[in-house]
């Protein structure tokens, strides 16, 4: 409340820059500029914060100490962030985003805790401040907002950590936690949460309640995320992203600062929208994702499905088939990212095109482990944007395709989604590669994809399996074509 008006003006400018950033980030051509403008807005907001009367007051009283403190924290945090961002492999972007997201939630919860500690300190003692005492009144904006920030922040932190673990495929997270007891545990936590929310709102000065509430939030972050199947993780990350925004907005109510409220709610809204768009792309309901997990559907055993029907082929054989092909569609999946085969694939497509063959890439919206994952990888390898075709666009053309080369994709080309209503991925729109004259599937084994289910495509009459690591397979294949 007590801040010089021009600081508020700077915050307002930062808020507007954030909106502009969002606007630009949602267009393919302008996204880079949007990101830069977002960063500029952040710089303005942070600079303005340094001139906050509370900060200037502390500097006037204590000299450079406060500045050294925040400088140190910013340097440490900034370097960790920059290092992570620059070092983490591109295939691991989803995990990285989840982790950063968790840190944002943690920061909001900690801000609420710090504000609470400082306000309690200011309300007591000799020079007790009336404003601080008013903040600590039952059901004050400060109290309610503090409680919500702590809860959402904790939930975001641990939810994100779990998502990180699952996406990083740490073995502790390999299996979704489907113990039916979890419903009881969650119910108990929900009751505790409500009770503690009320307690913090009624008596904000009891910091113990606050931290207990944060702990409940953290636990809920785990128990709610663990049952969700890995295939649904991108949805969860978007949702957690939204939560981290809401936590920042709630922190804005704690410190009565509109830039936090605006930026936080922008993020909150965009996260919700992205979540909805993504659910639609995977043909799942949000509620289903959040509470369903992958359920207990009986999953057909791979051995039954594949028994005796698998035809495998080597590079030379496939090269011969490709020589007669006029149109080839390449279908990349998560395996492409694992094998880092994007450059190899690009070369293959160049070679095929040089021989007069038409080559296109079919991009499934949830191929990989993050929406847009394949686009990022293939763009890295300089594949022309026009050749990346979206699902609805390219599906009708498979019937006129001579060879579909599936590289490390599995669930997104699983015809069971179309044919088997009891399948866990039933109803998910898939790429209809099985309609192509010949299907070549490059993968290392018959092991299932993310959803953990067998794929009848591998046993189809027109399918040839090409067992090898993705990159090696494609390099060999390219060589075979060039020598053949």
């Amino acid at each position, binding site marked *: 409340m007590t801040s010089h008006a021009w600081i508020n003006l700077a915050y307002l400018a930062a808020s507007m820059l954030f909106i502009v950033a969002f606007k630009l980030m949602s267009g393919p051509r302008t996204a880079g500029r949007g990101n830069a403008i*977002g960063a500029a807005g952040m710089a303005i907001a942070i600079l303005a914060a340094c001139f906050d009367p509370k900060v200037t007051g502390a500097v006037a009283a204590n000299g450079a100490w406060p500045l050294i403190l925040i400088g140190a924290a910013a340097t440490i945090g900034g370097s960790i962030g920059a290092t992570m961002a620059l070092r983490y492999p591109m295939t691991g972007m989803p995990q990285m*985003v989840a982790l950063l997201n968790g840190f944002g939630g943690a920061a909001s919860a900690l801000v609420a805790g710090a504000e609470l500690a400082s306000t309690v300190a200011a309300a007591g003692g000799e020079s007790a401040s009336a404003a601080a005492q008013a903040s600590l009144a039952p059901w004050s904006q400060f109290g309610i907002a503090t409680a919500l920030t702590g809860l959402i922040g904790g939930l975001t932190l641990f939810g994100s950590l779990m998502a990180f673990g699952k996406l990083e495929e740490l073995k502790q997270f390999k299996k979704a936690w489907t113990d039916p007891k979890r419903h009881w545990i969650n119910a108990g936590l929900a009751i505790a949460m409500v009770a503690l929310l009320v307690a913090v709102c009624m008596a904000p000065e009891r910091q113990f309640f606050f931290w207990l509430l944060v702990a409940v939030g953290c636990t809920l972050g785990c128990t709610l995320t663990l049952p969700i199947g890995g295939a649904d993780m991108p949805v969860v990350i*978007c949702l957690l992203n939204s939560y981290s925004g809401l936590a*920042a907005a709630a922190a804005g109510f704690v410190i009565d600062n509109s830039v936090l409220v605006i930026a936080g709610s922008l993020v909150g809204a965009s996260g*919700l929208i992205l979540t909805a768009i993504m659910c639609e792309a995977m043909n799942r309901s949000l509620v289903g994702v959040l509470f369903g997990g992958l359920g207990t559907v009986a999953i057909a055993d791979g051995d039954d499905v594949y028994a005796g029907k698998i035809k495998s082929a080597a590079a030379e054989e496939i090269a011969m088939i490709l020589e007669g092909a006029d149109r080839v569609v390449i279908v990349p999946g998560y395996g492409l990212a694992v094998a880092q085969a994007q450059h190899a694939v690009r070369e293959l497509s160049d070679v095929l095109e040089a021989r007069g063959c038409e080559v296109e890439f079919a991009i499934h919206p949830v191929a990989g482990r993050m929406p847009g994952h394949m686009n990022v990888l293939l*763009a890295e390898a300089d594949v022309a944007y026009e050749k*990346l075709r979206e699902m609805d666009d390219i599906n009708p053309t498979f019937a006129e395709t001579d060879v579909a080369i599936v590289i490390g994709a599995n669930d997104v080309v699983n015809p069971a989604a179309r044919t088997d209503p009891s399948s866990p991925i039933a109803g998910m729109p898939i790429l209809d590669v099985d309609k192509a004259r010949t299907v070549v599937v490059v993968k290392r084994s018959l092991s299932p994809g993310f959803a953990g289910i067998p794929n009848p495509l591998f046993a189809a009459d027109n399918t040839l399996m090409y067992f090898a690591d993705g990159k090696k397979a494609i390099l060999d294949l390219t060589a075979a074509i060039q020598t053949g």
Partner: protein
Amino acid sequence: MPTMLMPTMLTSLLAETAALPAVGEDAFSGFVRLLTVFLLAMWVGFEVITKVPQRLHTPLTSGSNAISGVTAVGALVVTASLASTAGTVLGFLATTFAMVNVVGGFVVTARMLQMFNPKKK
């Protein structure tokens, strides 16, 4: 006539309202003001984001993630105001975490977006 009662009742209702104590008025009005800003910004967010092309989801998620690190503003202020030891320590942690989020988020987004840029070499 009962219809004539209406204006009289309204008059006395309004007159009584004037006498109500304005308890907590400023605090609550402040809340409504922030709520207004919150709702408007949510709406802007909804409008701006609907219909993002699929392939921008990842950079958009990470970019918006970086912006949610705006909580750094609150963290900075509470740390540097040195109002209490606990507050300063917690604030220090909060600042660190928030800056990881901010810097990491923007850098990683820039890195991703650079890959979409055809003129990168």
